[in-house]
C-alpha cells in the first residue's frame, strides 16, 4: 500500500509533534516534588524568597507575606507558621541554619538587623542597627555562620558593598568593604556560604561574580562572567554548599540553578525559564539538605521545587 504525498509529509510531522508533546522540553528535568502554590493560606506562598533545610529534613521558607513556614520534607506536611515582627518595608532575603543547633538565622534586609529564630517560631535574639559605621548595616542581604557556630558573617550593599564579621553575640569584629559610591570587586553582595575550609563564598548580583574571602576578610579570588550561556552568571541570588563541597548558585536573571566547583569550574545546571515543573521563574533561595537534597525557591512561580538527587538530575556540561 503506497502512501500519498500528504501522508508522507504529515505523518512524520504528527509523529514528531506527538513525541515532542509527550517528553519534557530539553533541559527541563522534572523535580522530585513541588511544594506549595500561590496564596496566603497555610502551605501556600507568595513569592517565596529565602529557604533553608535542617538536619532533620525540615524546610523553612520565608515569603513576601512576612511568614516563615516550616515543612517536613519527607511528608511535605506543614509543621509551623509564624509572622515576622514587621515586614511592611520588605522581607528578609537571606536565611541560614546554625551549624551547631540548627536554629534559623535571618538577614532582615529592610530592617537592617539579624534575627535568630527557633523552629517553633520563638525569637531567640536579634542584633544590628541602621547606619554606615562599623557593625551598622544598610540592607544586609545574607548571614552565615562558621562551622563552630561562634562567628557570624553578614553581607550588605546599602551604602557600599561590605562583608562584616560578628561574634555569635552580635559584636562587630572586622569588615571588608568597597569605597562608598565606588566599586571594584563587589557591588551588590547578595548571598554567603562558608566552606568547610573556612573560606567565605559571596555571590555578588551587581558584578555577577563569586568572591572568595579568607577568614581574615581578605579577597582571595573571584570568578564568574555575566551572561546567560552555561557557566555564566546573571544575578546570582543565593549560594549553597553541597556535601561534596561543590556550590549551587541560583540565578534570578537566568531562571536556573548552576553548579560549580569551589574553584569556579562549571559542572551543570537545573531549570530553564518557565512555569511548568522543572522550570523556574526568577528564583531566589537555594538550599541543600543533609542527604544532598536540593530545594529552590521558585519565587515568581510561588512554589518550592525539590530535587532529590541533584548530582543525577542536573544537566551536565555546558549544553543548554
Amino acid at each position, binding site marked *: 500500500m503506497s502512501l500519498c504525498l500528504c501522508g508522507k509529509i504529515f505523518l512524520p510531522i504528527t509523529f514528531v509533534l506527538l513525541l515532542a508533546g509527550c517528553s519534557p522540553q530539553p533541559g527541563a528535568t522534572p523535580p522530585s516534588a513541588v511544594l506549595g502554590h500561590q496564596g496566603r493560606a497555610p502551605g501556600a506562598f507568595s513569592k517565596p524568597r529565602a529557604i533553608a533545610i535542617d538536619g532533620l529534613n525540615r524546610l523553612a521558607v520565608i515569603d513576601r507575606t512576612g511568614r516563615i513556614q516550616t515543612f517536613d520534607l519527607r511528608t511535605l506536611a506543614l509543621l509551623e507558621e509564624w509572622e515576622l515582627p514587621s515586614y511592611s518595608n520588605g522581607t528578609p532575603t537571606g536565611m541560614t541554619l546554625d551549624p551547631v543547633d540548627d536554629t534559623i538565622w535571618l538577614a532582615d534586609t529592610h530592617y537592617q538587623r539579624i534575627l535568630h529564630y527557633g523552629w517553633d517560631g520563638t525569637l531567640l535574639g536579634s542584633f544590628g542597627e541602621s547606619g554606615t559605621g562599623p557593625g551598622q548595616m544598610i540592607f544586609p542581604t545574607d548571614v552565615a555562620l562558621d562551622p563552630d557556630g561562634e562567628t557570624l558573617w553578614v553581607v550588605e*550593599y546599602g551604602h557600599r558593598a561590605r562583608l562584616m564579621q560578628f561574634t555569635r553575640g552580635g559584636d562587630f569584629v572586622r569588615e571588608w568593604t568597597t569605597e562608598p559610591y565606588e*566599586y571594584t570587586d563587589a557591588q551588590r553582595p547578595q548571598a554567603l556560604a562558608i566552606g568547610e575550609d573556612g573560606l567565605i563564598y559571596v555571590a555578588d548580583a551587581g558584578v555577577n561574580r563569586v568572591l572568595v574571602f579568607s577568614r581574615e576578610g581578605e579577597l582571595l579570588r573571584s570568578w564568574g562572567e555575566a551572561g546567560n550561556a552555561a557557566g555564566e552568571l546573571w544575578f546570582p541570588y543565593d549560594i549553597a554548599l553541597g556535601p561534596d563541597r561543590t556550590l549551587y548558585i541560583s540565578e534570578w536573571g537566568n531562571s536556573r540553578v548552576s553548579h560549580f566547583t569551589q574553584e569556579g569550574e562549571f559542572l551543570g545546571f537545573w531549570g530553564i525559564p518557565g512555569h511548568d515543573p522543572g522550570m523556574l521563574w526568577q528564583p531566589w533561595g537555594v538550599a541543600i539538605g543533609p542527604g544532598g537534597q536540593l530545594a529552590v525557591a521558585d519565587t515568581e512561580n510561588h512554589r518550592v521545587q525539590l530535587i532529590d538527587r541533584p548530582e543525577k538530575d542536573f544537566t551536565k556540561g555546558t549544553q543548554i
Partner: protein
Amino acid sequence: MALHFARPEYLLLLVLLPLAWLVARRLRTLGAGRKTTILALRTLILALLVLALAQLEWRSRAKDLTVYFLLDQSDSIPAELAERSTELVQEFMQRKTPGDEAGIIVFGREPSVETYASTTAEFDGKINSTVQGVRTDIQQAVSLALSAFPNDRLKRLVLFTDGNENSGSSLEVARLARNSNVALDLVPLRYDERQDVQIDKLIVPQQIAADTPFEIKAFLSSATNTSGRLRLYRDGELIVDQEVEVAAGRNPPLIIPQRLEEGGFHNYRATFEVPGDSRTQNNRAEAFTHVKDEPRVLYVEGDQTNRNYLTAALRAEKIQVDFASASEIPYSLSEIQSYDSIILSNVHASSMSRDQMKMFERAVHDLGVGLVMIGGEDSFGAGGYQDTPIEDALPVTMDVKQKKVLPNGALAIILHTAEIPQGNAWARDISIAALDVLSAQDYFGLIYYGPKPGQGFGGGAGSIVETWSWEPGMQQTGNKREMRSIIRGIQPMDMQVFDPTMEIAYQGLKDIKAQAKHIIIISDGDPAPPKQTLANAIRDEGITISTVAIAPHHGQTVETMERLAYWGGGEFYYPKSATELPRIFIKEASIVRRSLIYEERFDPVYDAPSEITAGFFDLPALEGYVVTSDKELATIALRSHKDDPLLAHWRYGLGKTVAFTSDAKNKWASDWVQWTGFSKYWSQLVRWSMRETSSSNFQVNTELRGGKGIVTLDAVDIDGDFRNFLEFNANVIGPDMEPQPLTVRQVAPGRYQGEFDADEVGTYMLSMRTGEDEQPELITSGVSLSYSPEYQAVRSNDEFIDRIAKESNGTVVGSGYNPFERNLPPTERPRPLWPWLLLAGLLLVPADVFVRRVYLDWGDVAAGIRKYAGSVFGIFRKGPDVEQRSESMGSLFAAKSRAKQTDEERQAAAAQQQDRSALRERLAQQAQEKQGEPSVFTEEGRGQAPARVQGKQTVSASDASEEKPSGGLAGLKKAKERARKKM
C-alpha cells in the same frame, strides 16, 4: 394563528405581474407548451418576491411569560426601601413556574442589566451592577427592557419606583409599553422624609454696580418646624453665620443685605446645617454675581521676585492687576471669567492640570477672556506647553520647524517603579507625560530592567536585562503615536543595581547631537548605589541627571537619590504621593526643551502693522527670547533678528490672545524696564487682549428649571427704546468644559430668550455676542446647579406612580401580587416567512432557464425512461450495447451544444447547413460522374447514415468527418464568412 403581512404596502407590486407576460412576447420562437410553463414560472417567481417584500408572517399565540423587574437605585430611594425592593424581587422569583423567564434591570441615571431574562435566573438579593444614583430616568430603563424582551413570549415589566422622575419621560414610554402589548405593573416605594431641610435656591442679582447695596435671598423648605445654622460664604470667605428658624413647607426667603466694592465675578455659597437631617446633599446652594468695574487682569508670574515691573506698568495705566503665583492659578471657570485678561509669565505648564489649561482655552474661545503669554525659561515650548490647550489658543506654535538647524534636546528616563502600587501603570503614565512635552526633533528613550521590547517574558534565559524601550535606544519623537503604543506595553521590573542602566543612558546620549541632554531616574533608591565616577563622566558630557525618590525603604536610599541628583547637576524630588509624578515629569522633560531659549542681544524687527505697536517707532534691544513658530492666521507684529516671532496676536473664538516671547523684567528686557514707553507698550498690549466689555443696555437673567437653563435678555438703547431684531452668537460652557451652542430668539419687544440643557451639577457660563465684528457687544452670564434634583425629593410621588399605571394600563400592585400570573392579553408570535419565499423564488429561476433553454422531446424522454428501466431491470439479462451507449452520449452532447447556441449562432449554423447541403450535392454529383456509384452523401444515402441525427440544426459526427477534402474546407470557410457578415 394566521398569515399576516408586516409591510402590506408592498403587495401593490403585484400589479406589475402582467409585465412578465409582456416580456414573454420575446418567447415567440418557443412552443406553446414551453411558453405557458415559462409564463407560469415567472409569474410565480415574481409573486413570491412580492410576498417576501411584504414580509409575510405566520403568527401563533405566545404561551410562555417573560418578566423583567426594574429596580430604582437612585439616591432618592431610602436605603431600607432599596433593601425591601430586592427582598420583594427574591420573593417574586420564587413564584416562577417552569417555562417562565425572569430578568432584572437596575436604573438610576442610566439603566444596567443585572440579569438577562432566562428560565434559570436566580437572585440572591445582592445587586452587582452599579448605576449613577444622581438622577432617575425611568424612560431609559423601560426602553431597555422593551428591547431586551424576546419576541415570542408574553411580557411583563414590574417597576419599583418612588415616582420621583427627573430625567426622561416615563409617561411616554408607558404608552409605548401598552401599545407593544407589554404589561407594566408598578410597585410603589412610598416614603415621607420627616427630617429634611433644603435650600431650594439662592438668588443673587447677576449684575450689580460697585459699592451699591443689594440683597441675597435664600429660599428654604423643610419637612418639619425646626432650626439650623445658615452659613454664607463669599469667594470662599465666611460672611454670615447665624441660627435660623424654619417652618414646615416652603419658607419665605431669608434676605441678606450685601454691598460689593471689588469688581469682577463673585461667588456666593450658602449651607444649612440641621441636626439629624436625612438628606444633606440638598443643604447647599451656589450663585454668583458680576460687579462692573475698571478692567481687571490676572497676572500669574513664575518669577515672583521680578513681578513688580509689569504690575507697576499696568497699574500706572489704570489697569487693575491681581497677582497670583504659579500655585495660585484659578481652578474654576467662574474665577477665570471674573478677569478681562489673564497674563501667564514664566509659568511652567506643570503648574496647571490639563483640565485647568482646557478651562483657560474655553474661557478665551467661548467667554472672550483675553490671554497673554510672556516669555521666560518656563514659557512656551521651554515651559512644556507643546500639545496643550494653551498652545491651541496662542498665536504661535511651540514646534519649531522653520530653522535650518533645529534646536533639540534628548531625554532618557530610567524607570524603577516596581516598588510602588501600580508601579508599571505609573511608569507608563509618566513616560507618556514626558514624551508629550517633547517636539519631533527631540530624542527620547526609556531604560529599565525587564524583558526586551517585543520579547515579553518568554525570551528565554537572560531575557530580564537592562534594556531600552525601543531599539536603537534614543529615538526622535516624530511618531509619538507609535511610541505611546510601545510605552503602553513596557514591563519595568525590580532593579538591583543603578550602574548598568545609567551606563546605557550615558552611552545612548553621548553621541547624539542635541543642545540639551538630560536623564531622569525614578527609583526607591534601593538598587546597589551607583558609582560616583560614572555620574561624573555623565556630567562631563554635559548631561544632567535629576532623580525622583518614590517609596524609599531607608534614609540611605533617599540620600543615594539626592546625591545622584547633586552629582548630576539636576533636581531631586521626593514626592509624597505618586499623583505628583506626572507634574514632575512634565517639568523635568521640558528641561531638554531649554534648547528653545536664545540668549543674545538683538533689536526687535517690525513686521505686520498692529494696534499694539502703533505709536512705537524705536523699540529698545532685548537680550533673549523663546523660539516659537508662526501660526498661519496670526499677526506677527515684531520678530527677532533671527526672524522668529517676538510679538504675535490673533483672535481666538470670542477672545484674543497675545504671545510676547521675550520677557517683561530685567533679565531679557533690562533696557525695556528703564524705557519710558514700557508702561504704554504693555498697557496697550494688555488692553488689546481684554474682553470686549458688555453693554450696559442689556439686562440678563439666567435660571434653572427642570434640567434646563433659561436665559432672558432685555435690550434697550440709550434712549430707553427696545432693541429689536438682534442676532446673537451664543454658547454655554457646562461643567464638562464642552461648549454647547445656545439659540437666543426674540420673544417680545426688546426681550430675547434661550434655553440649554443643564442637568449636570456645576457651573454654566454663558456668552452671547451681538453687533458688528468691529464693535461687538459681549454679554456674559452664568448659573450654578448646586445639587441634583434627585435630592429635592423628600417624599414619594404617589400621584405620578398612579399616572404611569394609568398610561400603561398596568396596575399598582398590592399584597398577593404574582408577576408570573398569566393574566395578560394574548400575544401573537410572528414567524417571518420571507426567507423561505425568497429561497423558493431563487430556486425557481434555474427552472425557468431550463425550460427556456432545453427542448425536451417527450417521446425521447419516454424512450429514455424505457431504456433506463430496461438497463436497470435487464442488467442480469444483457449488458448495454456499446454502440447504442455511445450514440446516447453523442445525442446528449449534441443537446448540450444546442443549448449553448444563441439565436444568432443558430442562424449562422443554418446558413452553414445550407452551404454544406449545396457542397454535398456537388460532391455527390462529381462522385457519380467518376464512379457511377451511389454515395452516402446523397439525400437517400444520408438517411442510412449510422449516426442518428437529433434536432434540426445538428450535424452528425460522420458529416464532419466526411467534409475533410480541401475543396470542402474552402467552402466551409466561405460559409463561415457569410455567416459572420450576417451576424
